[in-house]
């Protein structure tokens, strides 16, 4: 009854939701960042289960290897020892909890009616060659636009993060 992919799916789901809860509830932002690293790695596992091998590798390289390193750097740069003693939620946490629960309930309800029975059995095939053809074919214009966005982000990050006193 339980195949290996579905066991893997349930284990990954529990880890993903548990570490996501740590991300939003932990008092220590450093622990939040570590839990977020775990969530992002588990999402790469979901991509593997869905047959998206190239995307899983990209998720690990870009998110776990790139974004999280920068985020941990900023967390360590801006933490003071007093932060561990402060409340990390604002006074509206109850309303936020209710709103989040309402969104979750609405999404789950609407999906259950539409997609409960959809299931497919397909073998794993490497997708990198086909994705390369897609990116340089039908998706060429957004691909080039994204390179411009990345250049703008690079310049913007340097401009925002430079120290004014040094440049004078």
């Amino acid at each position, binding site marked *: 009854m339980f195949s290996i*992919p579905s066991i893997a799916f349930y284990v990954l789901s529990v880890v993903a939701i548990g570490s996501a809860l740590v991300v*939003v509830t932990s008092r220590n932002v450093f622990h939040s960042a570590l839990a977020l690293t775990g969530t992002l790695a588990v999402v790469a596992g*979901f991509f593997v289960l869905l047959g998206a091998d190239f995307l899983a590798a990209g998720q690990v390289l870009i998110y776990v290897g*790139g974004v999280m390193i*920068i985020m941990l750097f*900023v967390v360590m740069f801006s933490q003071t020892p007093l932060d561990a003693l402060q409340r990390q939620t604002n006074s509206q*946490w109850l309303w936020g909890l209710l709103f*989040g629960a309402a*969104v979750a309930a609405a999404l789950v309800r609407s999906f259950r009616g539409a*997609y409960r029975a959809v299931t497919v059995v397909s073998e794993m095939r490497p997708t990198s060659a086909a994705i390369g053809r897609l990116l340089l074919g039908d998706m060429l214009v957004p691909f080039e636009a994204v390179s411009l966005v990345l250049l703008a982000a690079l310049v913007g990050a340097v401009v925002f993060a430079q120290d004014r006193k040094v440049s004078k």
Partner: protein
Amino acid sequence: MTLYHFLAVSAALFSIGIYGVLTRRNILGILMSIELMFNAANINLVAFNHYLHPGGLWGQGIALFVITLAAAEAVVGLSLVLSIYRTIKSVYTEDMNILHG
């Protein structure tokens, strides 16, 4: 393991992200919650691609763009956080009120 299972997990991740965005005081926590919401959307894109269009790759391609843009957003956002921290020595959102009327 049907499409509905993946959609339910991603709905849970998305609403946890919404809760974090609405309630964290620390701006770094808000950025992390936004990353959670991006990832929930990515799971949805790839799951719809896998179950409803097994031969196609557009969902994965768009998810790749989402990852790229999320990385760009994180870099710019974190450099803004660094700049704000250098100016007001705080990462809590209620202290960032220099522009208030």
